[in-house]
């Protein structure tokens, strides 16, 4: 009843191609962004910021990045952790060696460095596909991890191999409290997500999806495989690199290469599979799901009043986490984004049966 587009007549192609063609969607997204910027800081506490909101937002950016490559362009990648590390170490080195650089530029630089590395490791995709490409990107993951652990220049010869960032400042304001970090990360996320949405609904997005769905047919309509695949690697790695830098600077503060190991790659891959391949919304849903589920499972015994040792809880958490993911994928292989789409479809008719 509430969610329907009856009476919303589009009179131009511009209106029909708009980012949210249905008014209710538009208002919902505006309201959500306004809520996140204005209302959340009124009630959120330290825990909510550092354990929930900030990780979800940063990993959403990484998930959007991987979704562009895997979900939209169909190139399976297991190297996200490595590309995040490239972003984090690039940002660290720029901030270390040119301390006056604006923090936004630092993060953009992180993105660009990850982009270059991404293009380099994307080159095999011109020859190999599917699982074989996944193995090639896995090699990238291991190589990058190794490089950041062994090449001392990247870590500024820190004896422990761990690096730490100093004070982070933007236009004279120090970004130190969780609330400030949250607002900063939120702003980055909104801008990057809108950019990604614009790309995937335009020419680039169609090019990537064409390559994903039928590469031979894409080539006969004049899409160059080289151009399509490498641009997907470039944009994807840029996003993942920025996410890596944000993760290092604003979530961890100090880190070692292990923070971006292959588990991180799998975590981001799970996010897009559970959230929905080929969906920007799905990247957010997937990141929220993967971050929130363990927290939820961890807290559950306390809420239910069951006394359990922390060790038992964390074992059960692991088992349930795996089981829920498997069950979910059986029930809805297309991810949370598809569930959302089905819900919207039903809402259009509700409360009438048809």
């Amino acid at each position, binding site marked *: 009843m509430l969610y329907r587009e009856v009476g919303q007549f589009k009179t131009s*192609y511009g209106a029909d191609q708009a980012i949210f063609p249905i008014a209710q969607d538009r208002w919902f997204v505006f309201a959500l962004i306004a809520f996140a910027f204005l209302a959340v800081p009124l009630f959120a506490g330290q825990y909510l910021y550092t354990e929930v909101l900030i990780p979800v937002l940063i990993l959403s950016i990484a998930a959007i990045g991987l979704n562009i490559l895997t979900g939209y362009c169909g190139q399976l990648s297991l190297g996200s952790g490595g590309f995040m590390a490239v972003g984090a170490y690039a940002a660290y080195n720029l901030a270390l060696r040119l301390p006056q650089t604006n923090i936004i530029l630092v993060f953009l630089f992180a993105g660009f460095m990850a982009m270059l590395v991404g293009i380099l490791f994307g080159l095999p995709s011109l020859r190999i596909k599917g699982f074989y490409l996944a193995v090639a990107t896995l090699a990238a993951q291991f190589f990058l991890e190794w490089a950041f652990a062994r090449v001392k220049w990247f870590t500024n010869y820190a004896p422990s191999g761990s690096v730490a960032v100093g004070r982070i400042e933007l236009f004279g304001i120090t970004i130190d409290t969780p609330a400030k970090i949250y607002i900063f990360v939120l702003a980055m996320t909104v801008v990057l997500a809108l*950019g990604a949405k*614009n790309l995937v609904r335009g*020419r680039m997005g169609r090019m990537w*999806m064409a390559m*994903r*769905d*039928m590469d*031979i*047919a894409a080539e006969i309509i004049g899409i160059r495989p080289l151009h399509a695949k490498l641009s997907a690697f470039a944009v994807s790695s840029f996003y993942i690199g920025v996410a890596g830098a944000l993760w290092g600077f604003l979530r961890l503060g100090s880190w070692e290469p292990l923070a971006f190991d292959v588990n991180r790659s799998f975590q981001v891959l799970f996010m897009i599979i559970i959230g929905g391949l080929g969906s920007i919304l799905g990247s957010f849903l997937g990141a929220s799901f993967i971050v929130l589920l363990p927290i939820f499972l961890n807290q559950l015994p306390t809420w239910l009043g069951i006394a359990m040792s922390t060790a038992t809880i964390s074992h059960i958490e692991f088992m349930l986490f795996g089981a829920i993911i498997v069950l979910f994928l059986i029930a809805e292989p297309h991810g949370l984004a598809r569930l959302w789409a089905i819900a919207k479809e039903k809402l259009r008719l509700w409360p009438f049966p048809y």
Partner: protein
Amino acid sequence: MRAPSGRDIAAGEALLAVENVSLAFGGVKAISDVSFDIRRGEIRAIIGPNGAGKTSLLNVINGFYQPQRGRITFKGRPRSAMRPYEAALGGIARTFQNVALFKGMTALDNIMAGRALKMRRGFFWQLLWIGPALAEEIEQRRRVEEIIDFLKIQHVRKIQVGKLPYGLQKRVELGRALAMEPDLLLLDEPMAGMNLEEKEDMSRFILDVNAYYGTTIALIEHDMGVVMDLSDRVLVLDHGVKIADGVPAEVQSNQAVIDAYLGLSH
């Protein structure tokens, strides 16, 4: 890019000339020494029994296969070995025997993808979705809507093509090829697996495309009724060898063709 720009060809002149082309896969000869031409504005049918080398011939024209011998002249210019996207750039579009649409995209997006070559705006404009990129997107959408009207698929434009019935999928695929505004359109069995009504519709669309857009068409088809009615000239292949070439009536009464189809011993 090695796009064959070539010169403008007047109607009735050879748009594409294939001379003594041979293609072999290992010891299997797919095409042996075939020569023919396609004149601007005509509908050219390529027929022959299964395995005659028809699709291989299209693949050669299209840049999928590189012939071992022979010469191809397109728009008056001899062509070197090229990739399919270069052929597309030169103005060759094609549909496939098994529908090769982008299954996860809507019909509209599929046809819009066909305009990829006509779109020039840079990455950053697209990122912002304003200014030139937006104007371009809307202008291309207008062109695509013309094609959608032409093929009468307005009602399915926002539906994922994977969910469409076969006949409509074939039509969307034709739309995607038309969106390229090709000089030469290659149709590989456009009516395979269709019922009579769908065949009649598709035949009309092919004639309309030829008449309205002036597109030169080369088509492979097994339905002899359709071939004889639609085409201006027919090329007949058998075992990779050209056995006849001429107007439908000539081909129909050609003894070699009748033998090939009835399976006379070779």
